[in-house]
């Protein structure tokens, strides 16, 4: 039972932090280190000028790191592919080029299957088959990407697009299939680009206790050669609340530390709307985002947290509310903290 006391402390810290980050006021407020970019069909029509505008805002926000969430979505490729159907103006090369110019780093996402969430909720034996398919698809995309990414110094590593949460993988067989999948995929993408690091993201629905969540991630990180565990804070999607988020952040941090890996927290800068027709979200209020960033910075590795996502919810390009969030962030976190 004494082992529970650290969690008690974290619990109370959580409650305290959820009320505000007054204690952090003495030190310069932490910043977002970068952002995800979630590519869609619409990006296939973006001109270079559009990308330059976006990257201009990212530079204003002092973003240093870009995570391209995926480079293939089902059969659509966001790079010049011979195996998939590329969008009209594949944006990956432009993103890498602009990142080169602005001295940013880019983590490149592999293939994503839109049916992922429904297909992992099946018998573990069939999930293992499905994961083998995903592995083949991501490996194929990575092979096609290698010549392209090799030309850019901004390329930092790979991002495995499957998001891992704490509800699906409780079954031992499903868990074994997942670990095997990650082990195989990380090995093969490492072989393709030996210097590149590999990241995977996960979140908690608070389905399992923080200790269980942490133990799961410790096992996962030990099973697969993953360098960076990107923990989604889940606040925007309503999966986590600021009151108990620190419990899971601490568990994630401990898991990464135990396995000798890096933890990077993803801050959700949106607020999901309650819409049964599908995912809809609006930019989150800055005070909430500020508290998320403060929490995330406490647990993230030296590079600091990344946002999900600045292009969608935090630039003037996405409307008034996004501009409001952008301006509030600049005032509070950029202007207030000189470089």
């Amino acid at each position, binding site marked *: *039972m004494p082992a*529970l*006391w650290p*969690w*008690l402390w974290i*619990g*109370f810290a959580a*409650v*305290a932090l*959820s*009320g505000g980050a007054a204690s952090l006021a003495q030190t310069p407020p932490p910043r977002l280190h970068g952002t995800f970019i979630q590519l869609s069909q619409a990006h296939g029509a973006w001109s270079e000028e559009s990308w330059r505008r976006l990257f201009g805002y990212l530079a204003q926000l002092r973003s240093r790191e870009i995570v391209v969430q995926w480079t293939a979505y089902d059969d659509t490729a966001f790079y010049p592919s011979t195996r998939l159907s590329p969008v009209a103006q594949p944006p990956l090369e432009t993103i890498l080029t602009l990142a080169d110019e602005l001295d940013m780093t880019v983590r490149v996402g592999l293939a994503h299957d839109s049916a992922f969430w429904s*297909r992992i909720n*099946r*018998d573990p034996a*069939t*999930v*293992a*088959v*499905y*994961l*083998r*398919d995903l592995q*083949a698809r991501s490996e194929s995309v990575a092979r096609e990407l290698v010549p392209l990414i090799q030309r850019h110094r901004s390329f930092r590593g790979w991002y495995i697009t499957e998001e891992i949460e*704490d509800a699906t993988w*409780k*079954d*031992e067989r499903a868990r074994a*299939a997942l670990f*095997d999948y990650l082990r195989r995929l990380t090995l093969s993408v490492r072989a393709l680009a030996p210097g590149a690091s590999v990241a995977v993201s996960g979140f*908690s*629905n*608070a*389905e*399992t*206790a*923080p200790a*269980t*969540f942490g133990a799961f991630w410790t096992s996962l990180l030990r099973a697969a050669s993953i360098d960076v565990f990107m923990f989604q804070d889940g606040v925007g999607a309503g999966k986590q*609340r600021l*009151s*108990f988020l620190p*419990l*899971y952040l601490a568990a994630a941090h401990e898991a990464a530390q135990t396995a000798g890996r890096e933890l990077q927290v993803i801050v959700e800068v949106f607020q999901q709307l309650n819409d049964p027709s599908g995912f809809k979200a609006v930019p989150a209020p800055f005070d909430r985002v500020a508290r998320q960033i403060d929490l995330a910075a406490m647990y993230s590795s030296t590079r600091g947290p990344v946002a999900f996502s600045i292009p969608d919810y935090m630039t003037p390009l996405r409307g008034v509310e996004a501009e409001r969030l952008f301006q509030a962030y600049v005032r509070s976190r950029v202007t207030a903290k000189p470089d």
Partner: protein
Amino acid sequence: MTPPLGRAPGPIRPRLGFFVWALGLAVQLVCVSPAVVQAQRPPPPATERAEILERLGVASLQRRDYEQAARYFRAAIAAGRDHWQIRQNLGFALLSLDRCEEAVGELELSARQSPAPRSFVYLARCYERLKKPGVAIHWLQLALLRLQELGPTEQKDVLGSLGYLYSAEGQHAAAAEAWERALALGDDPEIALRLGRAQRLLGDARRARQTLMAIEPDRLSRASRAVRLDELAELDRAEGRLTDSIAALEEANALEPSAQRHHALGLAFGDLKRRPEAVDHLERAHALAPDDLGYAVALGYAYKDAGRLADAARVFEGVVARDPDRLPLYQELGYIYAALSDTSRAVEWFKKAIDNAPRDPRPESDIAEERARLQQEVARLAKRFEATAYLTYRSSQRQPSTGSGGAVGGTLPSQSGVEVAYQPPVIGFRDERIFQVFARLLWNFRPESLDVDDHSLQAGVGLRYKPLRTQNLFVSAERLFAIGRDASDDWLLRALYSWEHHPLLGKPDWSHWNYTTVFADVGYFVERSLWVLYGEARQGVTFRIANQVLLTPHVVVDARYQDARGPTDSFVEGGGGVSLRYLFGESRYEGYRGSVELLIQYKAGDFFNRQRGASDGSFHGLVLTGVLRF
């Protein structure tokens, strides 16, 4: 769902009034939570109105008028009376109204001001309802640290809930521990039932049975009585008492019929080989839960076991259409259609199964082995023509009249030959029964040379049939045509049997393996009323010296017997040698379609003399045989 906590709301007793309440609060703060009291600021001064509002709230709680209670508590807080207990009571009122989103805010505030275990319990209950069981566990674990501050009923509820949540996480040992502690505080058949299940899942069948048998079924709800029987059935099944297991499941199903119980009954009847009952229950399970593909798969296998192959194929095809990741069903469909003599569909499904290899998550060696097996199936089913040619050279002056061509020669005395066989569509392969039309040309060489002995040229055309599914036995009828003067015009009726220890290629990851073959051939020449027997056995070890090259050192013994024989027609011989085999013509679906084999043997033997019952001469020498198959 966790059963409701059995406690009265808030620490304030009815009709005792504010002073008693305040005294109780003071006692709790000073005696129970001294550390907290030291850390807390004194409650803010409250107006008399605020105190009255709070008391009204408490009274409303006692009346279970939670809506009113929440209003009074909020009004009291707004009037300046804000302390951890009023927040806790407000949180409880909101929890009781199932307004957990609001309740957690109040309860967390209360817990921040004073870490009272009851607040932790309420928070756990809220988060459970908000579908955040992980956070609920956290708060219950905190409550556990100060369990003694709660009443016995509340303690039991904390432990019972914690056990339930641990169990949902798959932490059965922790769940069992919590439930055991709960039961130590007081008997509870529902908790005992869960404990019994956890003990079974932990592999402690003896304790699980003890726990379950100690429960009086009448004290359980109807649904729980059925669950208890399910658990006992599982224990019986694990211990091999299938009949008892079925009896328990039938009783459970009578109490609470469900697809799951029909499924379990179907599997249990299947284990007892009671096929019709298995099918019946699995059909019911499938009808009750048509979207559960696991039930559909079980039904398909039950149909297959019951010999209802067409039904099995229909069900399996339905499953694969809905979930193409069910890989084992592809080859299952191949075998079913092969058994239904629908060769084209069987080949189609076997090919799909072969195509699935890259998606197969099993170890590479297993996949390769299965692929080789499936390729052999396709090769057998899809085969139309096969050809064999062999050539034997013997160095001895007196030599037997047969080579080492196996089935091509055999009863017919020949050292070399060519055979072409045709397997017609539809009737050529039906449920492992094979029908072929064949033609062959055989000849001998002159002793110690490769000059064809023209007088020995023999042709034949015939039909052959494999009547048994599992045994490699062929019967044939063949018209022989004499081309050379030493050959014969006759009808030859033949039975050939062969057996080998394992397929030609062994397992894909093997570097060497045992090699045993037995071949027997009985022939009857109708017009001459002549019986001929031939048999051969080889024993050796095959080495894979390259991917397509096999080397097999072996020993061999063979014998031929013929009525009314010529001087070299009956003999027994033995020796040793090596076989070097090169495989070629690999195809995606059929593996290697051809091979060239060089057989180098040294043999010694005796010719028979039936009339005198003694040998009429021995022989020995090198035997070189080349065999081409494709």
